[in-house]
């Protein structure tokens, strides 16, 4: 009995640990971006974000003062200053590029000709000589310093106040909200007809909707672009709203139909017997009862439109004024691939809204996924 209990708890441990590792593996990429968005450019380019919590080590050199800076002290000529900046702590120092960490803080180095150099632990250096200094270029002091962990919101300030991200944010909003709301309405009516009205061709239409679910968007790009041009819609918001409405409809109709079919028959039939018109039944009974399915689809469509790059690139155009956030990110990746601080911050702002929606409405998202997939099988 004891053996079994022991086995059980070791199994529980194994499950806990492997689950934790899996979750960690899935979280780390996003965490990396998040942490990086709070680091300045130097920090990002000199150390990995995972090292940012322990302080980063840098090597470099400073030049001491020149002859003009010298003062006389106790019969010695002295040049003083600091070899480190701000909050950095000195770890080691040296006088030549060959061995930049030759000395410990507090050591004194003999530079020859009676000149000696001391660098204290706080980074203050002291260059002394019995003869007056005549140097016009300072001595090089190589330092190895450790910066304490530091984070900054400067990137966010920069990105939000300039660089077109605000504009892109507004553009994305402008695209997303109508493209989420309008298909819901159209789909709700269609789904009600497919679920609760009798007419010839109903089964065929339902099958068509299921089939259209998987049509690749790519097929639609050229024909629709030409159609929009011929209709005079051209590239613009109206075009992209219409396109997203069309592309989102199959899923919307499918999800809502599946949900509405499951609503209690008695309620609808008794309303019909009471003389309610179909429109009244739809508005008073079906819509309120279908709220969970409506919410599920709304989240899907919101995430999909917000995150879309292809449709926006094709139907909205690529000028600075028209870019949505995904488009802007893409441009940043191409033109400023090296500026990780801008890229990381912009990326994080662009994924913040969907993440917020995701965590707030996860319940409905899961429900929608289940209705859309498990039933389909």
């Amino acid at each position, binding site marked *: 009995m004891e053996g079994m209990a022991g086995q059980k708890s070791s199994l529980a441990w194994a499950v806990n640990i492997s689950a934790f590792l899996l979750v960690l593996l899935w979280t780390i990429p996003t965490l990396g971006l998040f942490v990086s968005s709070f680091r300045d450019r130097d920090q990002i380019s000199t150390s*990995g974000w995972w090292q940012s919590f322990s302080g980063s080590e840098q090597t470099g050199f400073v030049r001491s003062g020149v002859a003009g800076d010298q003062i006389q002290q106790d019969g010695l000529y002295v040049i003083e200053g600091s070899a480190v900046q701000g909050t950095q702590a000195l770890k080691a120092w040296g006088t030549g590029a060959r061995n930049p960490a030759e000395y410990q803080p507090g050591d004194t180095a003999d530079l020859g000709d009676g000149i000696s150099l001391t660098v204290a632990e706080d980074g203050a250096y002291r260059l002394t000589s019995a003869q007056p200094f005549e140097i016009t270029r300072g001595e090089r002091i190589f330092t190895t310093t450790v910066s304490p962990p530091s984070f900054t919101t400067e990137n966010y300030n920069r990105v939000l106040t300039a660089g077109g991200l605000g504009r892109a944010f507004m553009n994305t909003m402008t695209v997303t909200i109508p493209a989420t709301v309008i298909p819901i309405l159209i789909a709700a009516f269609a789904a009600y007809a497919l679920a609760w009205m009798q007419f010839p061709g109903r089964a065929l239409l339902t099958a068509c909707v299921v089939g259209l679910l998987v049509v690749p968007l790519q097929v639609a790009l050229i024909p629709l672009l030409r159609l929009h041009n011929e209709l005079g819609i051209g590239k613009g918001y109206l075009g992209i709203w219409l396109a997203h409405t069309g592309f989102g409809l199959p899923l919307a109709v499918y999800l809502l139909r599946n949900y509405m079919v499951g609503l209690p028959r008695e309620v609808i039939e008794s309303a019909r017997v009471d003389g309610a018109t179909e429109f009244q039944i739809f508005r008073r009974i079906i819509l309120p009862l279908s709220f969970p399915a409506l919410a599920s689809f709304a989240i899907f469509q919101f995430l999909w439109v917000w995150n879309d790059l292809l449709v926006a690139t094709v139907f909205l155009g690529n000028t600075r004024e028209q870019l949505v956030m995904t488009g802007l*990110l893409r441009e940043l990746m191409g033109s400023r691939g090296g500026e990780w601080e801008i890229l990381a911050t912009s990326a994080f702002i662009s994924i913040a809204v969907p993440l917020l929606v995701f965590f707030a409405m996860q319940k409905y998202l899961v429900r929608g996924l289940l209705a859309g997939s498990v039933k389909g099988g």
Partner: protein
Amino acid sequence: MELLWLAVSTIAIGVFGCVAWFWGSNWLLDRIFPPRGGKAGDNIRRANQIRPWLFLGPAILFLGTYLVYPVLDSFWRSLFNANGTRFVGADNYVWLVNDAKFRESMVNNMMWLLVVPALSTVFGLIAAQLTDRLKWGNIGKSLIFMPMAISFVGAGVIWKFIYEYRASGETQIGLLNWIVTQLGGEPQIWLTLPVWNNLLLMIVLVWIQTGFAMVILSAALRGIPEETIEAAILDGASPLQVFFKIKVPQIMGTIAVVWTTITIVVLKVFDIVFVMTNGQWGTQVLANLMYDWMFRGTPDYGRGSAIAIVLMILVTPIMVWNIYNARKEVR
């Protein structure tokens, strides 16, 4: 600010327009065939024949214009030359078959098709099983599910940062190269490394899709009747045996659904390749190849459409299978 007004007024117009159409057309129908008076019965019957089409009208119009018509038009256009002025028959398809980039894309797409659904489903299944009975299981699930909400472009940035390369000897700021150098290896420019770069791009999609697989499979696992599991445990089955011999066979149907759903996503994969390598270094895929022909340099609508039709043909088996299943369920 103007934009916001535009958006708000569009919503208002759109919503108002929809409601006006549905309400107005129904009202009109009731005026033409009043459900009272001498011919009430006849009128109600007629009105009920027409009404479904009023409800369905806008949806059919949109589906027809934005999905059905484009498929037909793309096919028609794929039989024409670059600017659609000359009928060339199957020339575009013949050209495709002989084009090195197209063949590369096909091979890559097939690799994506094998790797991504398989890995996502396996990881999803593992995640579903592991987090099932844990106290913090729901939080864990949320975190694994989270990448689902991140755009492919955002994911591209996230992973490009992980694959970032710095010359040997410099501090590696990309996690992957850092791990490699810590283990004593040489840092690599991962995204230009043939074949490996494909795998690294696939990992991005696996990362996104695993959460989806997990959510669906986790629900399926919970739906398994307890008795079957209890019986197996009483018979002395080990936890692994219970999982592989009792649980997995019972959710095969759901696994198939997850697999095909991810397959569809994979076939259409575009953004990840577009932003991370743009199809260079042997990572081209069909959707990006098509974008190239359509929108880069001088557009070639004939060839672009032909590639789109190839994509359409590739999803058709799944489409048929889905319809078959849906109809089976309706009956």
